[in-house]
């Protein structure tokens, strides 16, 4: 027991440390609208205290519905929700120790910033002095002390977003729900605000469930991500797990850029696999669960590909093509390579010197190669 504790604390906590304690448990939750639309389909999940858990998925996949069931605005058709061990499935929203920060904020337009933040506190039997103290501390947490008297329409988008955050944190909820918290901000402000938001959440130490359709946002903010599609979870894992080890084509495709080759397993050993594709031969340096002759997909991230003008000596893990497009991003450049089969792949090169890294230009013949741990084999 004590040994585990020491190894735990010895680990560098790059991502926030996961407390072992479970806060939220959802068991087989389903929501059917109007008897036919299955918005959420038999989802189970647990969220530990202190985690930031992101629900990531395309439009209409049921993220908001799941979140609204947690908040208590929708009644699940089936399944149970437990918070800190207590069954809250039938508890109305106003009795749950859960607060939500709404998409587009839903600030009360007739109340000042101060009154908006105090709104939830006034519903509890809290002494006047305590309310004032709590509101002041919330205001300074989100750095809006100067704006206490303003009405919501007298604030910019970013400021409104911070008021909404302060309002949802004021009651010290056990669980904070965030529905597209940064959806209404422009891109530049959003990136700045993501980190601010995480800092505030960590300072308060509240557990969060966050809905977003922006994978970068999920990656930056969350300690765990659930990728959703059509009402179900496709994969749940830490950001790096989901990115580096997607379990299906859909996840690989949804998170970041990816090149997917279709192929057939030619050789299946415990320490390596070879996969024959139309374009090239893949040598994967780890075992997989599959059989010879099975058709699979090989996912390769653009940044794991190296481009050169000379043909590689090796007999596998490379292919050749013509440069058809060069997209310069500043920090890196993405090359689109048209392979002889007609397939176009993307390769991303870091611009770590001031001249263009590999001297390739439109129409050049280039060789893309990668190492044997770079790809992920997708069996479905």
């Amino acid at each position, binding site marked *: 027991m004590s040994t585990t504790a020491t190894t735990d604390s010895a680990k560098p906590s790059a991502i926030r440390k996961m407390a072992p304690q479970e806060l939220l448990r959802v068991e087989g939750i389903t929501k059917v609208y109007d008897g036919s639309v299955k918005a959420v389909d038999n989802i189970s999940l647990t969220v530990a205290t202190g985690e930031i858990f992101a629900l990531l998925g395309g439009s209409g996949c049921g993220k908001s519905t799941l979140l609204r069931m947690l908040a208590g*605005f929708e009644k699940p058709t089936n399944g149970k929700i437990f918070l800190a061990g207590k069954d809250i499935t039938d508890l109305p929203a106003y009795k749950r120790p*859960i607060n939500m920060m709404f998409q587009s904020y839903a600030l009360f337009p007739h109340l000042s910033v101060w009154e908006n933040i105090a709104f939830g506190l006034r519903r509890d039997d809290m002494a006047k002095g305590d309310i004032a103290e709590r509101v002041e501390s919330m205001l300074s947490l989100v750095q809006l002390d100067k704006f206490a008297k303003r009405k919501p329409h007298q604030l910019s988008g*970013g400021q409104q977003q911070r008021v909404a955050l302060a309002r949802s944190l004021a009651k010290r909820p056990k669980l904070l729900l965030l529905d597209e918290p940064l959806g209404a901000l422009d891109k530049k402000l959003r990136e700045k605000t993501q980190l601010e938001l995480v800092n505030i959440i960590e300072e308060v130490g509240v557990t969060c469930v966050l809905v977003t359709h922006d994978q970068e946002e999920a990656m930056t903010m969350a300690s765990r991500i659930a990728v959703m599609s059509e009402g179900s979870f496709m994969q749940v894992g830490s950001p790096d797990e989901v990115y580096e080890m997607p379990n299906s084509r859909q996840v690989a495709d949804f998170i970041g850029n990816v090149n997917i080759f279709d192929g057939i397993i030619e050789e299946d050993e415990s320490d390596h696999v070879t996969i024959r594709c139309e374009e090239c031969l893949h040598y994967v340096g780890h075992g997989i669960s599959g059989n010879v002759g099975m058709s699979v997909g090989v996912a390769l991230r653009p940044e794991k590909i190296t481009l050169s003008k000379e043909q590689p000596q090796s007999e596998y893990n490379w292919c050749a093509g013509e440069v058809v497009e060069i997209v310069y991003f500043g920090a890196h450049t993405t090359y689109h390579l048209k392979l002889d089969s007609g397939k176009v792949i993307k390769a991303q090169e870091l611009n770590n010197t001031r001249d263009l890294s590999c001297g390739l230009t439109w129409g050049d013949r280039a060789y893309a190669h990668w190492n044997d741990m770079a790809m992920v084999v997708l069996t479905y």
Partner: protein
Amino acid sequence: MNKLFGRAWMIAVYIFLYMPIVTLVIYSFNASPLVTVWSEASLRWYVALANDGDLIAAVWLSLKIAFLSSLMSVFFGTFTAFALTRYKRFPGRTLLSSMSSTPLVMPDVIVGLSLLLMLVSLQHWLGFPERGLFTILLGHALLGTAYAAVVVTSRLNEMDKRLDEAAMDLGCRPFQVFRLVTLPLLVPALVSAFLLTFTLSFDDVVLSSFLSGPGYSTLPMVIFSRARLGLNPTINAVAAVTIAVVSIAVIASSIYQSRAERQRKREVAQAYSDANQ
């Protein structure tokens, strides 16, 4: 060419709409007892109005009925609208929604007549209500509720439902949501519903004629009955006073609204320029 036609048309419409009103106001200062012949300017009819007890009593009665019935209309209309917009399924919903808008399309004569029949038989069986102030109020409130419900419903429909959810999320029970969030945001709609039903009641002749009893003549009823006996310039004076009061109210409220709107725009702009500094 088109523009010219448009402008001419507009002028024609304005003349058509406002000529009678302007004439009426001018002739209220006419010394001659003949409504159509101008002799010289005088305040004679205003003096006559001040001494006309019946007319003044009618004005007061009308104001009283308009005030009370529009309060009732707004009250009942708000709850009807709330039930119809916030509760999508309850027994009798369709019935309520169609019933609440029936008075809008039903001719006043029919509404008045059926109400009268009902009241007469009620009085026959129960001995009350006596026709008079109360029965007029009832009729006006009935009609006004339908109008108020329409005004409030449209406001409720455009109100962000997430505000309700936010309030509930922060610990409000359903009635507290209504009292602390919905109602304050509804105030402008309640004011316009009040003004609308007030004017509806103030100028109603048909319902009032059916429902009033002896000694309860509203202003429009008095004007109407006197007009049948031959026009008397005192009526012009009453009308001119009414028009003055209404115009002042309308102009004041539109000035107030456009000021508030401009103020708001300035504040929004200010907020963004503050944020960018």
